């Protein structure tokens, strides 16, 4: 009877936003390390989103202070190849699902 398994998908990605936007975790969303599975996860009311290394790196920078451009810069300190478009697309996908809130930078 678990309900999340029965849900339809979020649909195609249409939303975009400027790199001056400031992302932070959505209301009621928690990022934590899952010791049992040795992965970071996003915890929501009825969903657990298992994150890969890249997703974790991006989300740990979504602190409500950094802009998207800042996040890309910070990622470039660790990773050689960081396509901005992919980071924006990832954040937009999470924002559409309300896992993230993105506010205007200025």
């Amino acid at each position, binding site marked *: *009877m678990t*309900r999340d*398994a029965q849900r339809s998908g979020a649909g195609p990605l249409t*939303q975009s936003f400027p790199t001056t936007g400031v992302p932070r975790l959505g*209301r009621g969303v928690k990022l934590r390390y899952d010791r049992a599975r040795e992965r970071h996860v996003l*915890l929501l009311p009825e969903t*657990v989103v298992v994150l890969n290394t890249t997703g974790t790196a991006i989300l740990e920078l979504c602190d409500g202070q950094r802009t998207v451009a800042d996040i890309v810069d910070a990622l470039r300190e660790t990773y050689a190849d960081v396509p901005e478009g992919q980071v924006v697309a990832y954040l937009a996908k999470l924002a559409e*699902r*309300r896992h993230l809130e993105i506010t205007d930078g200025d």
Partner: protein
Amino acid sequence: MEIDGPLGLLAELTYRCPLACAYCSNPVELAAYREELTTAEWQRVITEAAELGALQCHLSGGEPLLRRDLADLVRTAAEQGLYTNLVTSALGFTAARAAELHDAGLDHVQVSLQADEPQLSDRIAGSPSFARKIEAARRVRELGWPLTLNVVLHRQNIDRVAEVLAAAEELEADRIELANTQYYGWAAVNRAALLPSRDQLAAAEVVVRAAKERLRGRMEIIYVIPDYYATYPKPCMGGWGARQLVVVPTGDALPCLAAHDLPLPAANVREHPLSWIWRDSPIFSAYRGTDWMQDPCRSCARREVDLGGCRCQAFALTGDATRTDPVCHLAPDHDVVEAAVAEANAASRPVELPLVARSFRR
């Protein structure tokens, strides 16, 4: 075999409830669940679930606010790093209670609504409750929690799904779950009065689809289809003993919240550690994986997709939990579901039939 730990603990703290919804999934023999676990016992269950790997703790019932120790249990779960989710009718969610739960670290609140307006909502709930629910929903938002509304859909309220969505928008809900009734417990008793017609469903789905588009990014709409009208069954609980662990008020642990009556020995947290129950008990092992399956499931290409559907539904409708869930169009027992659907669509069937209210004295 290596068995992954559960993702979530569904703690059904009590089956006492101020509402009397005829669609309730709680067992019909409510009086058998009066000897509830103590605070210390629940705290041990929550801790053991976290140690097993659970990440979420859903505090449900009945009405969990009727447990005076609810904040203590939330605190224990929060200390264990669990995401805590209160599933409530919102009756008893006073300002003082809300503040106490907030301080204890409660992460999320789901408030049930029976309809968009008092007359119908109160009739379905069997109690004057609508006004207090709206007040409580506002309180959830005032304290900074995300707000999820749960609305169980059925023959007697599905025609108002547009109005329900408008009410949710006005309350600035973050999410709304529009879940068609699943026929367990009291809902099974009331199936004839609850199962909607095909036309009702088609109309509701048009409304929901348009609302999803319109509210994208603002309010998440989760629509749970009615499995009686589906082609294939739901992958119940994400697999038997695979993701979710239910503990009922008296301490029996179940793989599905409708598994009370399965003919398997009970596994009670008062007698066994949760790790043994999860990994080795007969009730959790019986239908894990796919080895238990009969045909047509056994040889079906979808056996890993829908996992044979719901064992409890198969048992309730056929008397044998290993049969294919009868909602599947390939199931040998599908005629049982077809007959119920045919009755629901008979021209002579009124929209409103009397409901048997959930009660401790049947």
